């Protein structure tokens, strides 16, 4: 509370969706504050490295430049860890290492917090050297450091090709690309859907050409079955999902690229209704045509509302900006909204195409059958531990959590909650959409006690 600024809108996340939302708000003369946990705006897609002068793409540069010029509040290096709905707006709790205001306030919220890599467990996935493709890409692209020397890429979809290209250019040996999807013959039949998507096709095909030139073998319809090693991964075994046709590779790094899951935990924390939609990457908020959630005044835009990529995020950000403006009593022309809606539909075609060719992994990857496989990495809860308590009658995520500690570690279930739900669904014969997702409570991330102290005694830490 206190006498701080009362913003019209607080935008959480300075990626493609958040920046484009904020630009619309500024253009309409509203007071908007954009908060991001990173030191520089850009998000994952237009990430600006703190290390190198090397900027993102032309598109990213001009968006970031417009964002820097616009009349907006900008708060970087700031972690939003809680939101409290109030009768006329929202109180937003933030933590900054450098101190400053701990509570902010706005009449409307736009949540544009993007997405994070989807983990798929297998025996040995906890070994050092097994890492997510997104993290590996950041390491090489933005930090100029090779994550490994002999690398196997396992997952599905074109991000793997892009990562392979960067690894090759950085001088690593890419021993293979393992894709859970079969060779995309069926994609050819859908090519007509890609009219007007030339730019993104070129990016993917360029990476593909680099892989062919380097002679990197691609293993279609295979998955990683296990990783082995003493103090880190030394060997990776791949094969068909049923465990046949195995082959092993000597590697020091395995990158997992099974796509992304929406990071919309703040929207879930404050009670926006969500539904499990597998092709969109998991739990996604229910929204109207303006990207407004079931909670009036709360908007979710971009990958946080379902994995659809940068172009959809840019458009949804604008729409959410207009939606917030409308809530604040500003007129937005109908024909403007119609035109944007038409663009949005075109861009969603690409996202649908990709999820058709490279389906959501649990369609093609069987859930780990080995009881010994770790499910919750923080608490080292294994598949068998969850199976046992399900046999004993546990049927909800909450019960699994209480009885096994799955999801109670430092990652607060961000890595395993979706996995536990899939296992529960499988073991109880329930569709995963019918398994209630985790209850998200503040703090969103573990924060030092001095970031909370003296004010929020009622906020229970997850740890």
């Amino acid at each position: 509370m206190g006498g701080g600024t009362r913003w019209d809108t607080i935008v959480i996340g300075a990626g493609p969706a958040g920046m484009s939302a904020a630009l619309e708000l500024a253009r309409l003369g509203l007071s908007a504050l954009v908060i991001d946990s990173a030191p520089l705006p850009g998000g994952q897609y237009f990430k600006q490295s703190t290390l190198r002068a090397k900027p993102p793409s032309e598109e990213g540069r001009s968006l970031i430049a417009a964002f820097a010029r616009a009349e907006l509040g900008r708060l970087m290096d700031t972690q939003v860890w809680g939101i409290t709905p109030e009768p006329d707006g929202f109180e937003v709790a933030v933590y900054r290492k450098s101190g400053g205001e701990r509570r902010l306030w706005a009449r409307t919220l736009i949540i544009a917090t993007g997405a994070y890599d989807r983990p798929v467990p297998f025996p040995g996935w906890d070994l050092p050297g097994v890492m997510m493709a997104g993290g590996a890409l950041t390491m090489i692209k933005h930090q100029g450091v090779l994550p490994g020397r002999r690398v196997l890429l396992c997952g599905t979809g074109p991000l793997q090709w892009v990562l392979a290209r960067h690894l090759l250019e950085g001088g690593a040996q890419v021993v293979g690309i393992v894709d859970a999807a079969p060779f995309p013959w069926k994609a050819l039949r859908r090519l007509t859907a890609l009219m007007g998507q030339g730019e993104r096709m070129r990016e993917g095909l360029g990476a593909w050409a680099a892989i062919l030139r380097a002679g990197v073998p691609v293993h279609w319809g295979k998955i990683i079955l296990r990783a082995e090693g003493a103090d880190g991964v030394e060997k990776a075994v791949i094969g068909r999902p049923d465990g046949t046709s195995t082959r092993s590779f000597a590697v020091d790094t395995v990158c997992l690229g099974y796509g992304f899951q929406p990071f919309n935990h703040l929207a879930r924390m404050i009670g926006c209704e969500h539904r499990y939609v597998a092709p969109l990457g998991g739990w996604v908020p229910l929204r109207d045509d303006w990207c407004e959630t079931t909670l009036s005044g709360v908007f979710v835009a971009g990958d946080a509302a379902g994995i659809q990529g940068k172009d959809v995020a840019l458009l949804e950000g604008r729409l959410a900006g207009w939606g917030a403006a409308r809530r604040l009593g500003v007129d937005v022309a109908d024909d403007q909204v119609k035109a944007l809606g038409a663009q949005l539909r075109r861009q969603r075609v690409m996202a649908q195409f990709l999820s058709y060719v490279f389906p959501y992994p649990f369609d093609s990857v069987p859930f780990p059958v080995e009881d010994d496989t770790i499910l919750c990495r923080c608490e080292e809860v294994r598949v068998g531990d969850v199976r046992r308590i399900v046999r004993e009658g546990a049927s909800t995520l909450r019960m699994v959590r209480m009885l096994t500690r799955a999801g109670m570690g430092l990652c607060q279930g961000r890595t395993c909650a979706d996995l536990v739900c899939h296992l529960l669904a499988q073991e109880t014969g329930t569709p995963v959409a019918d398994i209630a997702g985790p209850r998200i409570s503040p703090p969103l991330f573990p924060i030092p006690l001095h970031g909370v102290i003296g004010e929020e005694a009622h906020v229970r830490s997850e740890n």
Partner: protein
Amino acid sequence: MGGSVGITDTVRVVVDGCEVEAPAGQTIAALLVSLGYRSFSRSKVSGSRRGLFCGQGVCFECEVTLGDGEKVRACVTPVEPGMVIRTDQAKEA
């Protein structure tokens, strides 16, 4: 908005007792990987080694301890001049 820094700028930091130079703005994780570290921390349950996993601030498996005792995620924390960094690898040395 802070601008990017030139790649030639370096800072001196201490990693597990050894003084090293790092490019200014580099993340602790990138520095550790370039120094040859594969694992950063230990599982709180079994003590098994853990390395860089998500690389995006989600999983907290790359946590390292700074000189003042604060634990930070190596993957999202840039080095600062004079920073003292301790990984869990140091404990057995």
